[in-house]
């Protein structure tokens, strides 16, 4: 047996001239082992990254969904639904008549629609549960202001011209009742302003195009 071992070793020794080659192979094999380990680690890292990215994308799409809903509520999308349309115009006929019949007491202020008429009608619409309101092409948001400069009415700081069309989405019956009973509407009717109210199964409000200034506002906890 010992002899056999010796023979084998002798045989191996014959390959001594291949020692350089063997050394190269050993180094290569060693290197390959290292590379394989690196691949295993990389695959693991890749899988982890993919997994957390997938859950991150779920978070992201959740946020996107939330934003989309908020945009609807904030008036940043056109809104459609049942509602009413109120049309108000200056009392031109009344103005003409007054001008000719009693020019001394004629006051043009009494024959035009004022910012307050719109403001109080809008408040009445909100009290009746209006979910969205627009005056002419201006969608109303929280910070919308209605005012006049001279005889021009500004809504969202945009000039509007008569006739004024107030569109409101909500329960048409409830909105109609509220407006017909509002002091403002009754007043305008009594002064013979050409005012009109129609219910509609489907009206469309434009999207708000202005900004939401918040330089001074911070969330508070």
């Amino acid at each position: 047996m010992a002899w056999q071992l010796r023979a084998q070793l002798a045989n191996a020794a014959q390959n001594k001239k291949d020692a350089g080659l063997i050394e190269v192979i050993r180094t290569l094999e060693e290197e390959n082992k290292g590379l394989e380990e690196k691949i295993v680690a990389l695959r693991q890292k890749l899988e982890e990254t993919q997994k957390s990215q997938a859950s991150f994308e779920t978070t992201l799409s959740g946020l996107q969904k939330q934003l989309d809903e908020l945009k609807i509520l904030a008036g940043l999308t056109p809104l459609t639904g049942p509602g009413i349309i109120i049309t108000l115009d200056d009392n031109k006929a009344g103005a003409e008549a007054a001008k000719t019949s009693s020019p001394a007491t004629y006051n043009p202020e009494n024959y035009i629609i004022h910012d307050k008429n719109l403001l109080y009608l809008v408040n009445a619409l909100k009290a009746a549960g209006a979910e969205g309101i627009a005056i002419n092409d201006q969608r109303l948001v929280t910070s919308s202001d209605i005012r006049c400069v001279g005889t021009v009415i500004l809504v969202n700081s945009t000039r509007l011209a008569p006739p004024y069309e107030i569109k409101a989405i909500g329960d048409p019956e409830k909105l109609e009742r509220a407006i017909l009973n509002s002091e403002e509407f009754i007043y305008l009717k009594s002064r013979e302003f050409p005012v009109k109210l129609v219910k509609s199964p489907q009206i469309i409000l434009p999207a708000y195009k202005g900004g939401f200034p918040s330089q001074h506002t911070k969330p508070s906890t």
Partner: protein
Amino acid sequence: MPRLKAWTQACLTIVLLILGILLALQFRTQRLLASSLEAQKTGDLVAMWKNSNAKRSQLIQEINELEGQLQSLTSAWGESDKAQTALEKEILRLKTALGLIPVKGPGITVTFTGESPLLDTDLIDLINELWVSGAEAIAINDHRVTPATFIVDKEEGPSIYHTVNGQKLLYPIVIKAIGDPDTLEKGLTFTGGILDNLNTLYNIRPDIKKHQEIKIPAAPLVNLKYGRPSKESF
């Protein structure tokens, strides 16, 4: 005699055992030698070297591939990260605009005491005037003003009281507005302005104070029942 026999048997067992161990050892050595590089022929060694070399380039290619994937994932991650920040910022902005989160900031308070013969329209005008003057958030006695807020007077026997969103408003009525305090104050107090008129016509003199920081509470979210987003653009 039986004793001798037992002794022989024991010896034989030991010898056979040793022989067995030796054989096993030999076999192992043989195998080790056969698989060791030193036992290989030069031609085989060259083949092995080529093989290992080919494997090495394959592995390196795979590593490059994986590293590329990881990198593009990571950079996409950076993009998503930016997307998340942008989304959260916009959500916060809209929630603020809708009055869904409590806010704080500089601003003014306008306080009316019980002696003021105020009307609902005065309050509506005042809120409107604050928006005109650049208010960013408003509350009336801790009712945050939202797109749905309404102010209505109700009668209770001989007396009248104000309601905000259908809820009774108790005096003192404090209106808080966040924004530039000076601009807000001037917007209310200029000659011929809303407070000037209330003062001269009805002798209503609210107390106006500027503040470094006021806090305004949130309003609950109201979901739409009738309206839905429209695809139609205007």
